[in-house]
């Protein structure tokens, strides 16, 4: 028990896939370049060798058909894990994901279930320019019927992916491209992390910082520096945005009375915007300062290294926001 070792975020995801495929033969993996080369980012490395071409296969560049395949296979009781190489390409399959996968159960009066996972990643922070760096997660906040998961650490990535595969509903699993090579401790023994539970990554009394995916790392860096100034920040990692763990957010705000919300989306219509609104509605009396959002500006992602850095949320921007209200 409690034995851990250090592995990368990509390796943790690979372990999750491998373990679930061993456990349940209904789990199959497909997408562009996932089989022979093991994925553009090697998350599916070695799966073809272990599980064979019936369970792990490459598809043509047909994003609508990839997610459509997943919908059909899931309707028949398989547990497909489809990969869309970049979340930007998901816009081509959005009909299948939003209008089919997320609706089929409800509009059929509960006749079917769709236990599918669409794995994808956003590459903000890797100078990929405007068409390969979008953070489209907030779009999917407005889709009842679709669960949305965004892990920030290797530990979370593994436990959440395993739960997503076992879940009976469609799950959009959004990885962060810049995190693939980051390392963290992951237990040797099997574990699961439930969907819909946020994680308090750092406890504190002075201010609540809510973040997700890559921005959790920045929020933790910010919390370290704030501590040097005597400010104890509580950092909440959302882990999933649907279901959203409102209890954890609201309880923290009731304790700290101050809230900074951080995510990689453009400020307008962001996940942070939704959280700000909900906290204002439900915990207005607890707030001693305005809620501050830390987001990307409302322009597409620039590609030069320096400009992209200026565009992105970082620890410095989070610190500035906290200092404004503490």
């Amino acid at each position, binding site marked *: 028990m409690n034995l851990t070792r250090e592995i990368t975020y990509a390796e943790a995801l690979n372990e999750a896939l491998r373990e679930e495929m061993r456990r349940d033969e209904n789990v199959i993996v497909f997408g562009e370049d996932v089989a022979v080369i093991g994925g553009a980012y090697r998350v599916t490395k070695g799966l073809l060798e272990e599980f064979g071409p019936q369970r792990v296969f490459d598809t*043509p560049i047909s994003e609508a058909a990839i997610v459509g395949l997943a*919908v*059909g*296979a899931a309707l028949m009781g398989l547990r497909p894990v489809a990969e869309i190489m970049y979340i930007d390409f998901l816009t081509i399959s959005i009909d299948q994901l939003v209008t089919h996968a997320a609706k089929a159960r409800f509009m059929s009066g509960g006749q079917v279930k769709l236990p599918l996972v669409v794995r994808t990643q956003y590459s903000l922070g890797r100078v990929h320019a405007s068409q390969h760096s979008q953070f489209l997660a907030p779009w999917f906040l407005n889709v009842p019927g679709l669960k949305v998961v965004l892990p920030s650490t290797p530990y979370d990535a593994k436990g959440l992916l395993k739960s997503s595969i076992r879940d009976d509903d469609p799950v959009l699993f959004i990885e962060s491209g810049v995190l693939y090579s980051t390392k963290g401790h992951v237990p040797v023994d099997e574990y699961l992390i439930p969907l819909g539970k946020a994680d308090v990554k750092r406890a504190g009394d002075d201010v609540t910082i809510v973040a997700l995916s890559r921005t959790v790392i920045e929020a933790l860096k910010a919390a370290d520096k704030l501590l040097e100034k005597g400010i104890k920040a509580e950092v909440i990692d959302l882990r999933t945005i649907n279901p959203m763990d409102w209890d954890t957010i609201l309880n923290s705000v009731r304790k700290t009375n101050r809230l900074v919300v951080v995510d990689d989306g453009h400020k307008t219509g962001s996940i942070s915007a939704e959280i700000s609104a909900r906290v204002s509605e439900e915990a207005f009396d607890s707030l001693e300062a305005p809620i501050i959002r830390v987001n990307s500006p409302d322009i597409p992602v620039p590609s030069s290294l320096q400009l992209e850095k200026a565009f992105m949320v970082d620890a410095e921007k989070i610190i500035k926001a906290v200092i404004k209200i503490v």
Partner: protein
Amino acid sequence: MSNVIIVEETPATEYRTLALSREEFIDIYKKMLEIRRFEERVEKLFLVEGELIGPCHLYLGQEAIAVGVMKALRDDDIIISTYRGHGHALARGVPMEKLMGELYGKEIGTCKGLGGSMHSAMCVEKNIMFATAIVGSGIPIAAGIGLALKYRSSDNIVACFFGDGAATTGAFHEGINIAAILQLPVLFICENNQYAYSLPFTKSFAGKNIAAFASGYGLRSYLVYGNDVISVYKVAKEAAELVRENRSPVFIECRTYRQRGHGVYDRALYRPREEVEEWLKNDPIMKFSKKLIDSGLLSQKELEDIDLEVRERVEKAVEESRKAPVLDFEELNKYLYASR
């Protein structure tokens, strides 16, 4: 183009040479008439009584296709239907009151009133796994069903219905290509009813026929006269057996005609009158009943008796639907997720 297998109308003289019993002919006729009378009644419920509202896409004029294809399949084969799906559902044997109940938005409906007309064909107990209302979207989903059937080494196949409008979508090309690449047991049935809403086929599709397109992806492809239920049945039977044996996709384009507008409120005045009249002269039910009489399989009186019985059943479905309750709004949440 030369690879497309063309199948014309089947003459009455051939009827007695087919491996179909008299009972089977009666059943085919009855199913076609069920669709006809159901749709005519639905049209009145929308336009005369004003009792039904919302989108509704009638199957009038296309009855031969749903009935011919379903007859060629096994009951445990899977169906992917569309928003013009009442005909598919009735041909598959979905109870009329469940279908009508869905149009009324009632709890007795196939989808408990949560789907409405456009999704009313969705009926898992009859193996109709989806009825999509986005043109072309069912094609990749059918490929996914085929993937699961192949993965499980099932000897079932999936039949995917769509119209000529679907042939110009990306999903059509992505879905058919992937089904061919992965060698999936899918029978594609294109009901070319000549119109994508108001756009005639000649202005919507650059090729001469859709079957040739599928043939370009390496699929065996048929172009069949879709107003003849027996021709459709014969082609679908041969095609379904090929899909079942070879575990690879086959394509059928059925040439037919949408006798009404795109939706029930559309008067379709954009169609040339001569064209409409010509197709009405070739109405699939009129054609079939005449051949049944000509071949001596059924008498005029027997056909009339069937009609009376069908009309009564439609009326009963309307009555039941009127009386049925609507789901409790507070309960809707429980239909959203399978796990919580």
